[in-house]
């Protein structure tokens, strides 16, 4: 962007002026909207139970196959600033709700696409934003008015399982939805505090293992650590274990300050050796004396210590990671001990069973700690044919866990399969007729944009998308019921209540609010200044 003054002399106002370009006004808006639409179109094919997966290869050659919106966008490494905004949008939805990360992007893209024609009509972008905001308000009110409540308690969690199944429907695990949905719900209920409506996710551990099928995924009432006992001759199973958790290495302690030990005689050397050996003995004695039957150590120990531990019949695990140590401590009620001298019987944790198990035919082993005194820690062991499947399985289960958690927090639901979007769209169309002024147009545009999700859903399911959506629209209007949606799996009914397809109310509201917020932000930009040649 070279500028000239009135006498024709060029001047430089900003640094590297010749390397920067500038888009303004409608040109800038169009560029932004197009960027957003490109991202949204890319995501469209991943919506719904028949949505497709995407393979992403990062710069290290690591392959990820997924249809989780947030994961796709995160791994795409987009550079365009507007596309980046959409990535953060789906990330925001992921952080808050954990589900619906694809729809939120598709919806935001549709809102912007609709605004394009409004801009061409000459409506001021901030007017459009105001209209969208109003429309979003109406849509959220409508959502609250049509939502249903589901009931569940610790014994009867069938309704929660159904909700988890909807979330898993579009994922790679959909062959085994029944089993995995059940596992997810059980895991959440195990750690949930139903009274406070709080779920602590860090107490659920997701562990992946290649080998076997996704159907063999299991829920373990306890913790798995991918380690083995330090000596092959140690017992493989310990019942009623008392666990000592140590964060000090099994070796003579060293001062942290730099030091030098002068050994100038044989006598001194022998002395040192004796001290060291005594130390090992003292350590194992202290452990034994405390009554511990299993030792978990954050650090390593050498053969000498290992041998002594075997002699004293103390099965031990070395190099246990910090996070595992913490989880085990919480689960077994143990205290983490930093020095051998502080080890007392009170500080030991209790577990019903500690087993070393091997998996399949490989010599990979793992240690399972079950029946802990404080059962509030569970592990889901995800198995699958290859690493990609296991990783995608973990992500899917994470989504299902989030849905369950959200329902525990707020048990209001709305019907899926595009039913709510269509219902809101109908409601908005009705409402728009009573609103004066230009806002009417933007409200109608909002209602049109809402249909983008059911349309994508229908076309991914191989239906004639427009026909299917308009049919449902008609049906909803005629019968005035909000639970008709797209019958993606050809189950013969479009009644989502019967199909048990539903989303959480919180998640939907969040989607609407976030997408509207994003559309407003992008519409408000009318000037782009960026280095030339990029994007």
């Amino acid at each position, binding site marked *: 962007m070279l500028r000239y003054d009135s006498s024709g002399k060029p001047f430089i106002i900003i640094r*590297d002026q010749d390397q920067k370009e500038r888009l303004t006004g409608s040109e800038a808006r169009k560029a932004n909207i197009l960027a957003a639409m490109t991202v949204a179109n890319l995501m469209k094919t991943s919506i719904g139970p028949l949505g497709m997966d995407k393979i992403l290869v990062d710069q290290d050659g690591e392959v990820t196959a997924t249809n989780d919106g947030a994961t796709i966008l995160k791994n795409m490494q987009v550079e365009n600033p507007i596309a980046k905004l959409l990535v953060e949008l789906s990330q925001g939805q992921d952080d808050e709700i954990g589900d619906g990360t694809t729809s939120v992007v598709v919806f935001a893209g549709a809102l912007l696409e609709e605004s394009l024609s409004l801009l061409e009509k000459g409506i001021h972008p901030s007017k459009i934003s105001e209209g969208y905001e109003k429309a979003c308000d109406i849509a959220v009110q409508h959502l609250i008015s049509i939502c249903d409540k589901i009931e569940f308690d610790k014994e009867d969690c069938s309704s929660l399982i159904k909700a988890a199944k909807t979330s898993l429907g579009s994922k790679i695990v959909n062959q085994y939805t029944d089993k995995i949905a059940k596992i997810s719900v059980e895991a959440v209920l195990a750690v949930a505090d139903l009274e406070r409506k709080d779920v602590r996710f860090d107490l659920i551990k997701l562990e992946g293992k290649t080998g076997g099928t996704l159907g063999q995924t299991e829920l373990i009432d306890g913790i798995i650590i991918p380690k083995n006992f330090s000596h092959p001759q140690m017992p493989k199973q310990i019942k009623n274990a008392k666990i000592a958790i140590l964060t000090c290495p099994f070796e003579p302690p060293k001062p942290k300050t730099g030091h030098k030990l002068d050994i100038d005689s044989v006598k001194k050397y022998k002395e040192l050796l004796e001290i060291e050996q005594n130390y090992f003995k003292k350590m194992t004695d202290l452990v034994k004396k405390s009554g511990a039957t299993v030792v978990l150590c954050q650090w390593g120990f050498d053969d000498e210590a290992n041998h002594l531990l075997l002699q004293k019949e103390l099965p031990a695990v070395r190099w246990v990671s910090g996070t595992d140590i913490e989880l085990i401590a919480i689960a077994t009620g143990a205290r983490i001990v930093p020095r051998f001298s502080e080890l007392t019987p009170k500080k030991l944790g209790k577990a019903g069973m500690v087993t070393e198990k091997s998996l399949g035919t490989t010599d990979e082993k793992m240690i399972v700690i079950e029946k802990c005194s404080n059962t509030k820690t569970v592990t889901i062991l995800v198995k699958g044919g290859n690493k990609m499947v296991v990783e995608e399985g973990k992500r899917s289960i994470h989504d299902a866990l989030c849905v369950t958690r959200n329902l525990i927090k707020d048990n209001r639901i709305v019907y899926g399969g595009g039913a709510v979007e269509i219902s809101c769209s109908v409601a908005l169309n009705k409402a728009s007729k009573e609103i004066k002024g230009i806002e009417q147009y933007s409200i109608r545009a909002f209602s049109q944009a809402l249909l983008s999700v059911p349309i994508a859903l229908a076309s991914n399911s191989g239906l004639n998308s427009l026909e299917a959506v308009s049919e449902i629209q008609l049906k909803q209007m005629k019968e005035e019921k909000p639970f008709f949606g797209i019958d993606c799996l050809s189950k013969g009914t479009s009644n989502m209540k019967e199909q048990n397809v539903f989303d959480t109310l919180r998640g939907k509201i969040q989607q609407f609010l976030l997408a509207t917020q994003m559309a407003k932000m992008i519409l408000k930009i009318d000037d782009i200044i960026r280095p030339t040649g990029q994007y």
Partner: protein
Amino acid sequence: MSHFTPTIVLLKEGTDSSQGKGHLLSNIDACVEIVNTLKTTLGPRGMDKLITNDRGKSTVTNDGATVMRLLDVVHPAVQTLVDIAMSQDSEVGDGTTSVVVFAGEILEQSRSFIKENVHPQTLIKAFRKACFKCRERIKEIAVKSNVEDEKQWNSMLKKCASTAMNSKLIAGHKDAFSDMVVQAVRSLDPEFPEVDLIGIKKVGGGAMEESFLVNGVAFKKTFSYAGFEQQPKKFTTPKIALLNIELELKNEKENAEIRIKDPKEYQKIVEAEWELIYEKLEKIVESGANIVLSRLPIGDLATQYFADRDIFCAGRVEESDMKRLSVITGKQIQSTTNGFTSEMVGECELMEEKQIGSERYNIFTGFEKQGSSTIILRGGAEQFLAESERSLHDAIMVVHRAMLNSNVVAGGGAIEMELSRYLHEYAKTIYGKEQMLISAFAKALEIIPRQISQNAGFDSVDIMNKLRKGHFEKPKENIWMGVDIENEGVCNTMKSFVWEPSLMKLNMISAATDAACLVLSVDETVKSPSLQDNNKISMEGRK
């Protein structure tokens, strides 16, 4: 030989120098150029800018000072405009766009006079006079709010805050936010309010509506070691120890080396090191504190030690958060455990760790004194949050200013129109060139309402006509007539609650005049060649 005139080389090769009228006009052009970039952000319908720097970091903003800074201006004359935007930002916090736009317009108006060979100093003198008159007029007509009446006072502050937020992304939620901002500012010590003590924390995800104000201090969970999860996460009436001590088993003296002669001594050294840290930990526990916060890291040993005693700890807490806690509890941050007693421990009613979005936050509330508060800001994307933070900062600054000086004027171009009318009338009473120049200044003031209506997509000529007519015909009744954004027309903006602290306008007018005068008084720029260019020349010379 007598005709021979030697060339005198005064300046370094490559130095760029230009002077005279042409140069002055060129400077004005450059300033107007940058003002044109900025001016679309003015007013409630102002647009945002998306600026990407060469490292690919992009910012979306509507804040004049931020735009000016990100543009990375190198032109020396335009630099003055950047400076006034910055000074307005640090002085008042809001009105950064207006000040630049106004300065640019003064220059634009003076261009024709320069072309007609009016001496720049004459212009400067007249502008200074006009500026002085404007300031007097603002002080004269500003409406004083009743500080005694609590309710009225509060609502005035809220109105100022929401006017500052009008043009921003968060305008849709300005009611909730202005409430938060006013509460936050009022929580400060009324005698020495320090805006730094209001924390703004951004948490991605969630909707704007979920933002909230914590009447106390909140900060994100810090990095923690194993054992942290075993610590209790909720305390009622906890005792808080604020430290600046590293609680880790480490070498106390760096670069020191211990020489051990006797192997038996070895163990003693190890013990001594352990004792050092245990002594510190014991002292802290003895003081009765059950929450330990430190600016420096708290290691795994200490974490587990505290977990064992049901004490909560957090290391590497940010300095600003520590300062807030220190102010609100009225206790000093201790940098040694020697002589650490229960008197040095702060108190509050409730401390809780809460999940906000995907982050965990430690929230301290219920302090005896006031003095600090934290706004937790929610929103979809990082850039969105960053812009919201800037907008909130503006609003906080405005409220802060309004509290110190409770006079307000009406925004929406009303005050500018009134000043313009006043100057026009004043100009008629004087003789000479100044008459024209003061009228030009008066005309420059009109840029604010004109730009506001232009940005809103209104017919600005029509609106300006209405405003001028209103102000000139009935100066008393229509004193606060400004642009009506809602209904595309004019209205009494004082009545529609578009209020701005008069201090902001005072600063805007004097800063803009100063900048314009500075640009006008320059008749030569000597620019030394940059180091790179210099090298290039000398390289070429060697060839």
